[in-house]
């Protein structure tokens, strides 16, 4: 039968999917997938610092990711390097520094694979509480900045001219990205978090024709991916993160079939 650890993982996964759905839509709309990757890579440094200082992992990851986001914004202003180069620079250097720090922490046993790809066995009740409370806060804040963020995603100048505050919304959204990575790192693993954000949203884009619809489908897609992924993980003893992402890929492929159909109908 279903074991305790599995129920815990399911609870945690559902909590994560409810938040990555709407956030992922913005990642797709604003073309932030590499930005998400960079923050996720930097999370490794956050985790190692948490271990070495005996600090809460989610909080530590959140702080480091937010810090990396700040550094990125600063570098964008100071240098003439293109955005993708800066993202790569920060992603790989923070990953490298994180791994080097792990090397120094030889006295602690590290499950590096679990960090990279997620580990459902590691999810405890504390993590679930962090995911659900953190997730609720993220969604509340997102609802609060939604109008400004969405309008400026469509067109910055319209939003700015008509009394909204796009710059503030963007800054807050960056913090939300750091927060979602912090709460979902144990479930999905840092190499695959961006996949959890992008793939359900991309699937939703294929089958929706309004922003609200896309958010809804993205949430549903994320939930299905978590449920299918976790059951597969239990059945075949595969790592949880990759199983969830593979499930979302499967849904994405299904959504492509729908596009093909509607193109046929048009002709």
């Amino acid at each position: 039968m279903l074991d305790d650890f599995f129920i815990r993982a399911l609870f945690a996964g559902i909590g994560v999917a409810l938040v990555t759905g709407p956030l992922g839509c913005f990642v797709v709309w604003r073309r932030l997938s590499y930005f998400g990757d960079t923050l996720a890579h930097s999370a490794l440094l956050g985790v190692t610092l948490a271990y070495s200082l005996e600090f809460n992992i989610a909080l530590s990851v959140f702080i480091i990711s937010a810090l990396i986001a700040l550094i990125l914004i600063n570098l964008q202003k100071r240098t003439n390097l293109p955005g993708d180069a800066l993202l790569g620079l920060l992603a790989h250097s923070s990953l490298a520094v994180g791994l080097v720090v792990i090397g120094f922490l030889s006295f602690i046993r590290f499950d590096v694979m679990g960090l990279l790809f997620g580990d459902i066995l590691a999810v405890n009740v504390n993590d679930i509480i962090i995911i659900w409370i953190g997730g609720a806060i993220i969604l509340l804040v997102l609802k609060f900045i939604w109008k400004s963020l969405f309008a400026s995603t469509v067109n910055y100048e319209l939003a700015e001219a008509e009394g909204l505050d796009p710059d503030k919304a963007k800054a807050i959204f960056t913090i939300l990205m750091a927060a979602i990575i912090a709460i979902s790192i144990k479930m999905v693993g840092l190499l695959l978090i961006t996949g959890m954000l992008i793939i359900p949203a991309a699937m939703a884009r294929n089958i929706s024709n309004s922003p609200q619809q896309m958010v809804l489908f993205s949430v549903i897609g994320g939930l299905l991916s978590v449920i299918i992924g976790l059951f597969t993980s239990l059945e075949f003893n595969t790592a949880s993160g990759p199983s969830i992402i593979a499930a979302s890929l499967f849904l994405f492929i299904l959504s492509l079939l729908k596009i093909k159909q509607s193109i046929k109908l048009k002709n």
Partner: protein
Amino acid sequence: MGLENKILVKLKSAGFRLNDKWLVQGVSLQVEKGKIVTLIGPNGSGKSTTAKIALGIYKKIDGEVEKYTNKIGYVPQKISIDWTLPLRVKDFMSLTENLEDKTISEALSLTGVIHLKDKNLGDLSGGEFQRVLLSRAISKKPELLVLDEPVQGVDFTGEIALYELIKKISEDLNCGILLISHDLHTVMSATDHVVCLNGHVCCSGSPIDVAKNREYKALFGEQASQTLSIYEHKHDHIHTSEGKIKKN
């Protein structure tokens, strides 16, 4: 000052510099309730820049901008919309302010594009999109409308109808309009105040005054003002390249 001519936005010798090059400088103007102020001038003369200064899109500016309203509708000259967004016309209509479905329909009917309400924004033609942009700007019943070439790409008969609509809106809503237009006929017939720009304010005043102005003629040619060219004033400066001004 009565309520009739409440000032909505006021520029006091405002200017904007991008990479050490002045796009426009020393612009003073004001838009009052119920009045249409039109900016004219050749390409690159700073018309759109002036509009963006007035709207607060450009923040690091020279001089001062005083805004007395937050109910603003804006039709930008260039708009690039990212098609990674699934966006229908009716979603776009309530982009910056939530509107009732009825309000959206009314606004779309005014510009003659009600049939496009459920269409995807990416499927519209240039002229159709322009009409939707104008609908969106007026739908929230703004106090100040900033229209940067609002009828570009619209067919000839539509153009006349839309300018009539703009004039009507300014009367119905009693809102102030800052209009940028290339159509001098329209400008001269439907405007209360004209500001002629060429990197700075060349001349300004009522349409008749401006048409008589020598700088205006220098910019737009003799034909543009042939109807009313009785009065001429002495042109006290000439324009060199990069918008610099040389006194005679």
